[in-house]
């Protein structure tokens, strides 16, 4: 298991059915707009990277895709063993990935996921101030319903769900008392 502050995903056992998906969710993946054509039975082929670009004019959120990403994240956390640490780490990497894929046009996705990434990164580095899981969840819900395309909508909903499921993990990180920032 890597350290919390290293910023690197822990190793996932190669036999794990989710490994392929984890690789696809890895940092080197340049674009993740939505995930489609996957079901739970085919997890080793899961997480097909989207071909739909976020610039598309109107996109209904792919709730099937959302369910899949959510499941992948939870599965990664569960298999890692140390849920308190890993859920926050995975979320940080996920938000980095979203930022790298965001077309930058819509405010909730461009700035909302950025601010969430900053909160989570601050938490990991021990520099977070006045952090509250409720505030993060509120921001995530906002991003989830207000974004222009699937990328932001899925990201927001997933973060909100992760905060809900692993609230204790977020609360275990030390938070500074300073009153600036989020």
């Amino acid at each position, binding site marked *: 298991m890597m350290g919390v502050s290293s910023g690197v995903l822990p190793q996932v056992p190669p036999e794990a059915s989710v490994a392929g998906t984890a690789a696809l969710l890895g940092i080197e993946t340049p674009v993740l707009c939505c995930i489609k054509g996957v079901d739970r039975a085919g997890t080793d082929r899961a997480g097909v990277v989207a071909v739909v670009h976020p610039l598309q004019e109107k996109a209904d959120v792919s709730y099937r895709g959302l369910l899949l990403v959510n499941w992948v994240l939870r599965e990664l956390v569960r298999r890692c063993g140390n849920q308190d640490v890993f859920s926050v780490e995975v979320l940080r990497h996920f938000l980095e990935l979203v930022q790298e*894929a965001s*077309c930058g046009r819509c405010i909730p996705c461009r*700035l909302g996921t950025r601010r969430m990434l900053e909160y989570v990164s601050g938490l990991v580095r021990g520099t977070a101030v006045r952090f509250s899981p409720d505030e993060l969840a509120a921001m995530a819900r906002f991003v989830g319903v207000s974004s*222009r395309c699937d990328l932001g909508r899925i990201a927001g909903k997933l973060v909100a769900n992760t905060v809900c499921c692993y609230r204790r993990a977020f609360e275990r990180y030390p938070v500074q008392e300073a009153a600036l920032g989020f």
Partner: protein
Amino acid sequence: MGKVSLQIDGQPVTVEAGTSILDAAAQVGIKIPTLCYLEEINKVGACRICVVEVEGEKDLVAACNTPAEDGMVVHTNTPAVRASRRTTLELILSDHPAECLTCVRNGNCELQALASQLNVRTVRFGGATHAGLPRDDSTPALVRDPRKCILCGRCVSVCNNIQAVGAIELQGLGFEAFIGPPANLELAATSCVQCGQCALVCPTAAIAEKDDIDKVWAALADPQKHVVVQTAPATRVTVGEEFGLTPGTPVTGKMVAAFRRLGFDAVFDTNFAADLTIMEEGSELIERVKNGGVLPQFTSCCPGWIKYVEHFYPAFLPHISSCKSPQQMFGAVAKTYYAQKIGIDPADIFVVSVMPCTAKKFEAERPEMNAASTYWNNPRIHRDVDAVLTSRELVRMIKQAGIDFADLPPDEYDKPLGVSTGAAAIFGATGGVLEAALRTAYELLTGKTLEKVDFHEVRGLKGVKEAVVPVNGTELKVMVVHGLNNARYAMEKLKAGALKDYHFIEVMCCPGGCIGGGGQPIPTDTPVRHRRIEGIYQVDAAMKYRKSHENPAIKELYEEFLEKPLGHKSHTLLHTQYTPRG
């Protein structure tokens, strides 16, 4: 198209299919707030300020680009909607410099107005910002301040879709996304024509005109300088807007009075030079028609259009009239004829232009625009035009000086360079230059009086207008285009050989012509353009002379100084050459 019926905030409304929720709501008196949206230009739904709840939809939808559907039930003011708009705005403000008090758009900023409208009084979020991004002031006309950019995309839309230039684009991903010239070039290194339409649609001050007010104050304070001002045709129907008057209200006399109070030594009119342009450009057209010159002849008054051809169609530069724009003709005449007439050293004359246009700043700095210096062989003279102010800058100067503009008693221009005709006044509207040219060309070619001076076929906001005018046995075929995308249409036709039988084509870079110029008051939208054009034709109708060749001051100029149109002095002072930019 059929109709659809829906309910918005409990109110039934029936609209044409395809109407956006935003427009449908407006029909029942509900004004949904917007930020990136701009009618006819930008409907990308990027900013998410206009989100609304639609029953049956899991997420909020953007009202600006979601079509109303039959049976739809829309809520525009729920707690979720209000919270979303507020959070969006706070996120924008978390990456926006809090410089409102010193910002050029203070009091006229859409972001500022929206914060007030949505009652946002605090910003809960902090974090990384773009505060370190450098300003780009590489052009003489425009300043880009990426720190203030909210990435609404309006400028990109107008530059690409309305102006067909594409000098700026959305680049990068996520938080690192930004709008600017490709490959991190400075704006001056691109094909930007400096028309300023981007500044006109920018909701903040991310793109604005370069401010030359201090340069003018310094000249006014210099006792050695004889400071003269010229006012472009389109400014007289727009400046009043900034002082609470209805768009299109002519304020010519008030403007003249304001200039006197500001301390200008002489107040002249670019319209004088517009009449001069017609004499030269009309004569050039007649010569081309009679002697088998390159046709069609394109107008050359608009510096944005000239730069566009230099960049995108350099092979067709011989089609462009060699006449300088009225601004530059005025500068050359002021520092030669006028200087000689009143006995002032031309090096002491400081010419200020008040223009509807940012590209005029670029034009004044073109290396070849120093005809007076060449004429007198005196390097102390520098430029023909020393400073160019946009309408917006003039308004700021008047406000800075504490002049109560709305209550100013009207005054009259000085002679001789303040005498003009109605033909010159209509230069400010699309079709005006062509109409003015026709009024003169008809009489010069036929020797008969033109009874009906109004050519309605070339007026109005239609993108491409055409007419055939019988003149002395010749069918004069003419075209008018405005907005560079329409100019591109004309140039592609020319390229394809489809304009061989045309004689004269007027091109104005900005939609609506100079009344919609990039330096005009903000907002400038279609209804405002219509009213300004009406104002221009009011000015024309009220003039004593309505044909350029009837202008007594122009006749005097030729008699006393220039001798004849297209003569030697005219070629030296009033004509120019162009630079293929590839």
